[in-house]
């Protein structure tokens, strides 16, 4: 396993659970025991948790399972013909099966690298650095209207910082939850004191003496800041695979089994695979998907010729203030959103997202059990016309 985060750990454990008793090596570019990333923008950033709480498994789990850890060393080269991976310290590992689970790296703004006062949220160091900065209650400008930015905005307000969130979308979070729910969440942020600037791409970070002092928007406006968080997404960590012979296009191109090449598999944020139902290429940067794909790859490695296509109903959640937003399925490309129970006004509701006449996703805020009941409609791709007759649709 190259990549020692959720997907790599799930693959290693899955292989042992499936009865594999040969050697297993987990290679990780970060020097830490495998840790969980969703809390980085939540409990770790707010200071409710310390970093030890992020450990994916107890330290002794790896030795108990006979998993050799090679941490703090990145893989630098793959030779598929020789079935060999070279590491940054010059050592080489040979494999009978290779799982690529290197995840993604935070995107950065042009010119922002190396500046003091510019932050991303991808690693535990990122989160602790931002946490330290927030303790001084700076004016924080958050670039990006996705979950990471919205969660960080909530935390920073809770810590008493002045917060401005700037996004190129017309409605923050619209990419993830659609305009209706995004508008409701934007209202919540505004009520809590977040200033939101929409429809405004950020051109660059402005610096004085090597320190960020604000951002310049595409229309020339300048937002002054004492700290800048860049939350504009991530790109798959595949640079080291260029020239390996693997197909790389917005991730590692896999078949429906998550196989990328001869004895090579991919799982988690790096893996691009065709949805077995729609044929559409998917790549999902969510925590649950990483575990599911790691486990699926382990099963397929052990299954040999009877390996099966990876199928999933993606799940993602976000915590913002006292709201928990949960989504089953894919909201992107939905043509209509229907509130099923509750209401946006109450900020407690379930909603379904319909695409091409089918229920493609279900989203809930504060209605856990009701949402779980809707998951079945997503799993079975139920036509909306049929689903609505059995639901208490309010809008």
């Amino acid at each position, binding site marked *: 396993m190259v990549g020692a985060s*959720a997907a790599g750990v*799930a693959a290693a*454990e*899955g292989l042992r*659970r499936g009865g594999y008793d040969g050697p297993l090596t987990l290679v990780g570019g970060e020097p830490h025991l495998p840790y*969980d990333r*969703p809390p980085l923008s939540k409990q770790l950033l707010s200071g409710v948790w310390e970093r030890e*709480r992020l*450990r*994916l*498994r107890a330290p002794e789990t790896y030795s108990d399972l006979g998993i050799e850890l090679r941490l703090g060393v990145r893989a630098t080269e793959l030779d598929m013909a020789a079935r060999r991976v070279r590491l940054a310290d010059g050592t080489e590992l040979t494999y009978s099966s290779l799982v690529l689970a290197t995840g993604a790296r935070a995107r950065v703004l042009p010119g922002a690298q190396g500046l003091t006062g510019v932050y991303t949220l991808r690693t535990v160091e990122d989160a602790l650095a931002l946490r330290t900065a927030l303790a001084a209650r700076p004016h924080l400008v958050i670039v990006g209207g996705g979950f990471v930015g919205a969660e960080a905005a909530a935390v920073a307000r809770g810590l008493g910082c002045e917060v401005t969130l700037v996004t190129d979308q017309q409605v923050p979070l619209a990419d993830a939850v659609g305009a209706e729910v995004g508008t409701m969440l934007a209202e919540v942020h505004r009520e809590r004191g977040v200033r939101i600037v929409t429809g405004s791409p950020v051109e660059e970070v402005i610096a004085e003496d090597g320190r960020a002092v604000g951002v310049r928007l595409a229309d020339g406006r300048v937002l002054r800041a004492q700290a800048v968080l860049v939350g504009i997404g991530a790109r798959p960590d595949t640079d080291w695979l260029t020239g390996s012979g693997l197909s790389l296009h917005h991730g590692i191109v896999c078949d429906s089994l998550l196989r990328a090449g001869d004895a090579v598999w991919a799982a988690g944020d790096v893996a691009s695979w065709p949805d077995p139902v729609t044929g559409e290429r998917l790549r999902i940067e969510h*925590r*649950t998907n990483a*575990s*599911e794909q790691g*486990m699926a790859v382990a099963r397929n490695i052990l299954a040999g010729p009877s390996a099966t296509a990876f199928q999933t109903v993606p*799940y993602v*959640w976000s*915590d913002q203030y006292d709201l*928990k937003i*949960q989504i089953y399925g894919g909201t992107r490309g939905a043509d209509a959103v229907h509130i099923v129970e509750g209401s946006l006004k109450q900020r407690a509701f379930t909603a379904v997202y319909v695409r091409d006449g089918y229920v493609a996703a279900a989203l809930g805020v504060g209605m*856990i*059990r009701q949402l*779980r009941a809707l*998951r079945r409609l997503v799993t079975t791709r139920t036509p909306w016309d049929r689903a609505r007759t059995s639901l208490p649709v309010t809008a």
Partner: protein
Amino acid sequence: MRITIEEDKCCGAGQCVLLAPEVFDQRDEDGVVVLLDAEPPAEQHAAAREAAAVCPASAIEVQA
């Protein structure tokens, strides 16, 4: 088999309930996991292990 859960780690995903509904449930108000059976019978073991492995918050621990 003995199962333990860490309630304050739970993110309310409900994956465990979907996989092993006789072992896990969720609180209505916040979705936090409820352990129905800390020592489930043998026929539940595979599902419980799967639930622990897939839990996106690593909130479930299963001991042989």
